[in-house]
């Protein structure tokens, strides 16, 4: 069986950044698997600008951001096998891959980095009644059609869900000459960035209907219209509020789900909230030597954060191969009221870097609230926040010295407080 030090599954932003960081940390035996025929992942179809402000200090489009990292991978002569699908992963770190050129190949790796990204939530997960006419697309599929293949998915469009991809597509399709009638959002707030609501909807006079959803899809062969209804505080349609909206296309931008089939096959523990692996501060999963980063771990808002997270996974994979991973117990990072999850879920005080970034999302919109960190019973951080919203990832930085000061520390809690 072929043996490699580090195998990276996925050649999108997370996989590329992990590979570059692993190389720069000294490892020269790195292999990337990518199922598409090009590297770069979803960035290739994200032709809009706004990427790279943190990492490169300039505003790039998705393809430009991808090209920077592909260039770094090529400069380092890191091997990438394209058109190759990883179909199995074991806890013993054996990956099984399949491709037209090589057939079925098994590789034993000393360390593995999961960088498979995420998938869009499909129509089937929504239970909208109606037949199965043509004209229903996930927003990302429509984005691929328009930006890569050069086809318009329709001319008269309703978008369900106000995630960023849906907002970006509202503008994109409008610029290409389609009529976008409205964006419906079941929640009372948008899951998208404010900038996208203003520059993708307001700029073009596209209404954002909060607390509204699609309750029926009309049409047998092709979408002919949808029924839109207001919802109550329990997200149930309010009888009598239904409105028929004619359209030929319905786009769904209703959430992203980390793609963790391989993770589950390896028996790695999955977080019930993120649907990604449970990891410690090194981004190690519950199986030693298998790391995870990017949208396969938890869905990010900014690719810059994905790159930064993946670099950490790359460096730690190198440390694991070199035998520098400790066996100490971790301090758990727990969520209190208002916080849905944290990544990481535990920190090993001895192995931690001087500063550990904990990323998380809140479970609701909070205005003029405080973001607090407790070490066991002591509140050590109490940050006033004008606004906290589930649509924007938050971070808390844990300095290593907190552990040195408290050798008996059992748990860290992060929560939202009113005062």
């Amino acid at each position: 069986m072929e043996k490699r030090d580090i195998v990276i599954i996925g050649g999108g932003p997370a996989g590329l950044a992990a590979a570059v960081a692993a190389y720069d940390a000294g490892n020269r035996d790195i292999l990337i698997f990518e199922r598409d025929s090009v590297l770069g992942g979803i960035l290739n179809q994200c032709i809009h600008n706004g990427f790279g402000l943190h990492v490169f200090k300039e505003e790039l489009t998705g393809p430009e951001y991808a090209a920077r990292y592909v260039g770094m991978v090529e400069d380092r002569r890191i091997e990438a096998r394209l058109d190759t699908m990883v179909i199995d992963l074991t806890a013993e770190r054996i990956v099984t891959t399949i491709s037209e050129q090589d057939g079925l190949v098994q590789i034993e790796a000393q360390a593995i980095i999961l960088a498979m990204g995420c998938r869009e939530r499909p129509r089937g997960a929504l239970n909208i009644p109606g037949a199965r006419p043509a004209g229903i697309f996930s927003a990302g599929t429509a984005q691929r059609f328009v930006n890569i293949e050069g086809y318009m998915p329709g001319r008269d469009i309703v978008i369900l869900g106000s995630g960023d991809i849906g907002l970006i597509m509202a503008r994109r399709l409008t610029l290409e000459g389609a009529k976008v009638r409205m964006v419906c959002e079941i929640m009372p707030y948008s899951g998208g960035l404010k900038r996208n609501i203003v520059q993708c909807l307001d700029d073009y006079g596209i209404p954002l209907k909060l607390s509204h959803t699609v309750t029926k899809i009309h049409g047998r062969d092709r979408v002919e219209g949808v029924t839109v209804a207001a919802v109550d505080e329990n997200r149930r349609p309010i009888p009598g509020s239904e409105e028929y909206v004619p359209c030929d296309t319905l786009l769904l931008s209703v959430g992203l789900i980390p793609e963790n089939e391989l993770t589950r096959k390896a028996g790695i523990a999955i977080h019930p909230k993120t649907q990604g692996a449970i990891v410690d501060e090194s981004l190690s999963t519950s199986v030693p030597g298998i790391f995870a980063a990017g949208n396969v771990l938890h869905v990010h808002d900014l690719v810059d954060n994905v790159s930064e997270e993946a670099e950490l996974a790359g460096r730690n994979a190198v440390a694991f191969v070199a035998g520098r991973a400790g066996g100490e117990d971790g301090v758990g990072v727990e969520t209190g009221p208002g916080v849905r999850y944290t990544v990481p879920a535990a920190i090993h005080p001895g192995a931690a870097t001087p500063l550990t970034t904990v990323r998380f999302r809140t479970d609701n919109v909070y205005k003029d609230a405080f973001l607090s960190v407790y070490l066991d019973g002591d509140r050590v951080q109490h940050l006033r926040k004008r606004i906290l919203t589930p649509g924007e990832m938050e971070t808390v930085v844990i300095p290593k010295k907190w552990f040195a000061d408290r050798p008996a520390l059992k748990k860290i809690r992060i929560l939202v407080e009113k005062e």
Partner: protein
Amino acid sequence: MSDKQELTCIGCPMGCQMEVEVEDGVVKRITGHACRKGELYAAKEVVDPRRIVTSVLPVDGGVVGMVPVKTAGDVPKHKIRDIMKVLKTIRLEAPVEAGRVIVADLCGTGVRLVATRSVTRR
């Protein structure tokens, strides 16, 4: 001439609803903002709103059929429709290199249109 405009701040998730009074093209009063960021955004947005425009162009003979493009700088918002009309008339031949200038001056804005991805020949 006096004029009141409403806009949403994009500085942070607060999304303050602001009102700007403009007289003869000069900002007189900004209300509704919670911080300096909002004030600066509103002042510029009302007098001279600008955007980067991105799109794709068809390319013949390449490994992919479309090449993504962007305006190299921001352009006046009211020019976006005209720019999209110009883009509809362009068809390229592979290879295209990322950064290639496709239009030197878009609709009199003085802003270039550039490719944001390389497309090699098939």
